[in-house]
């Protein structure tokens, strides 16, 4: 992921390259959006015209797809993304308390980023780790049987 100081002009070049790479695949839009978000951390709205032109879609269609899917975001997240599972299995093992603890410690709600830009908090509906509920994902790492004190340790590490 590019760090937050990277000028957007590089992002434009990167997006052009990714478009060239993906535009000829059948159903190219999702793989392309993934590639952009994997590299930049988000899909900048400024890229919509470029994407729409390459894939022969309207800007509204691109916007419609980006906003339909929970995974895609149009704004840069914090340095780390923490997802807490809200699904039934995790609820049965105390995820509600974990959510409340996270929101209180980070002083933010879901879809928000901490003041120091360290953590963006997101909800997720099942990580497939239901045997070891409650579960949390930090970036691409999954954690099972997470207690509030485990969560504190994860937060401390992310803020370090």
């Amino acid at each position, binding site marked *: 992921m590019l760090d937050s100081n990277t000028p957007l002009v590089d992002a434009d070049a990167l997006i052009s390259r990714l478009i060239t790479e993906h535009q000829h695949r*059948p*159903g*190219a*839009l*999702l*793989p392309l*959006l*993934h590639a952009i978000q994997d590299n930049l951390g988000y899909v900048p709205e400024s890229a919509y015209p470029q994407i729409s032109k390459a*894939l022969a879609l309207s800007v509204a*269609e691109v916007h*419609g*797809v980006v906003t*339909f*899917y*929970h*995974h*895609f975001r149009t704004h840069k997240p914090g340095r780390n993304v923490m997802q807490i599972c809200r*699904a*039934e*299995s*995790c*609820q*049965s*093992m105390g995820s509600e308390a974990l959510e409340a603890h996270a929101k209180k410690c980070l002083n933010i709600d879901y879809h928000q980023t901490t003041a120091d830009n360290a953590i963006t908090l997101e909800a*997720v*509906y*099942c*990580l*497939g*780790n*239901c*045997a*070891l*509920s409650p*579960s949390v*994902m930090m970036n*691409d*790492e*999954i*954690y*099972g*049987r997470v207690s509030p004190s485990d969560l504190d340790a994860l937060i401390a590490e992310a803020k370090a």
Partner: protein
Amino acid sequence: MTTTIYIPRDSSALSVGAEKVAVAIAAEAKSRGLDVEIIRNGSRGLYWLETMVEVSTPKGRVAYGPVKVKDVPSLFDADFINAKPHALSLGLTEEIDWIKKQQRLTFARVGVTNPVSLDDYIAHDGYKGLKNALKLSGAEIVKAVTDSGLRGRGGAAFPTGIKWNTVLGCASEQKYVVCNADEGDSGTYSDRMIMEGDPFVLIEGMTIAGVAVGATQGYIYLRSEYPHALVALNQAIEVANKAGYLGDDVLGSGKAFHLEVRRAAGAYVCGEETSLLESLEGKRGLVRFKPPLPAIEGLFGKPTVVNNVISLASVPIILDKGAQYYADYGMGRSRGTLPIQLAGNLKHNGLVELAFGATLRELLYDFGGGSATGKPIRAVQVGGPLGAFLPESQFDTPLDYEEFTKIWAVLGHGGIVAFDDTVDMSKMARYAFEFCAVESCGKCTPCRIGSTRGVEVIDKIRSGKDHAKNIQLVRDLSDTMLNGSLCALGGMTPYPVLSALNHFPQDFGLPAETQAG
């Protein structure tokens, strides 16, 4: 002599530290000058024992677990690499009761083999099914799948052979096989375990499907929440391509089959087959009207087989051992085995593959060991967020599609989530509506509007406002969603809502004696 040690690479094992354990064991072996080879296998599915480390011995594998990094020096001190006893000893893996009591067909190799080793896969009977299939006509393959009685394991339980037969019967220059790997139901993880623990069995199943119906391109639509499955699948696909098990000329048969993994993007509704196809085409995942069926007009308008991971992964053994062998497992019209996933508030959660017919009580207590918190199990949700909540009085229902239909419940994808007696069922009903509101694709009104109204009405009930009137309103709303929604998301949200209301009326401020069936 080199000692082989198995340490899972499965997500759930990683979630409790398997990676650190693997690193620590490698480092400790090195510092002691011991010659060990570490294989990163899938999980055996005994998740309360993860990280479960196994050591290969002439008598079979010996297991230790749950191993934490801090246990590693003492394991070496106890000479575990020569299978010597330790406080974490579990004995011979195959002799562990939980494993012995299962009937593993689809999951036969998961936890046993190196998931991305083709040699290992073949040494454990892999690709026998495809080799048999290549000697048969498409119609003969489809007949075998039909005769096995295999029904879609994704939830709808539609006969797989009938679906394939429709695609086989369509004339088209291009057909597709699409694997629905958008496993989004809470309490389910068997798709993930197959993709991480034995990706070749899915690849083989899809290849057989392609050969059977004349499809040359396959897509695995994989949920974005499964990064480790993505890695394992891509590694296995690359190996299969290089070895000629995929590509323009599958095993010299002259038949082509190409396979690609496509990442989903966090929309639950894309587990519904028509919205999945829209998503694969690069659009918003809006549900399509049926007909036309995807088997006739599917991906990019072409005939398409859309099957769940477990359905496709069950095909190789059917083509290997025969339709009758598979059909001999099960009861009634539910043939073969079901990989059951125990989740939530249980002592021993994990994957149990059994022939249809076991009861919930056996699974919850014999396998699950009762609740994790030690309190009574009060409610069990079977079949994901759209499945009914079952009270204790229904725990003796056998796992069989028709038996579950009789009690107005669903087996779905075989996920079982247990709740202890601290659960508030009106809150769970509210959550069901809330989840539907978050995940609705928005195309049909009952689902889009009904779910949001449902949350509001449950809130009124919970605060006691116009109580009787609002209870009736939930029932009316549920009736509209059941009968008027375009797909299962809106159409089945009433299952958790009404089952909670009917079986646990006291949680909605009603007298307990109004309890129905």
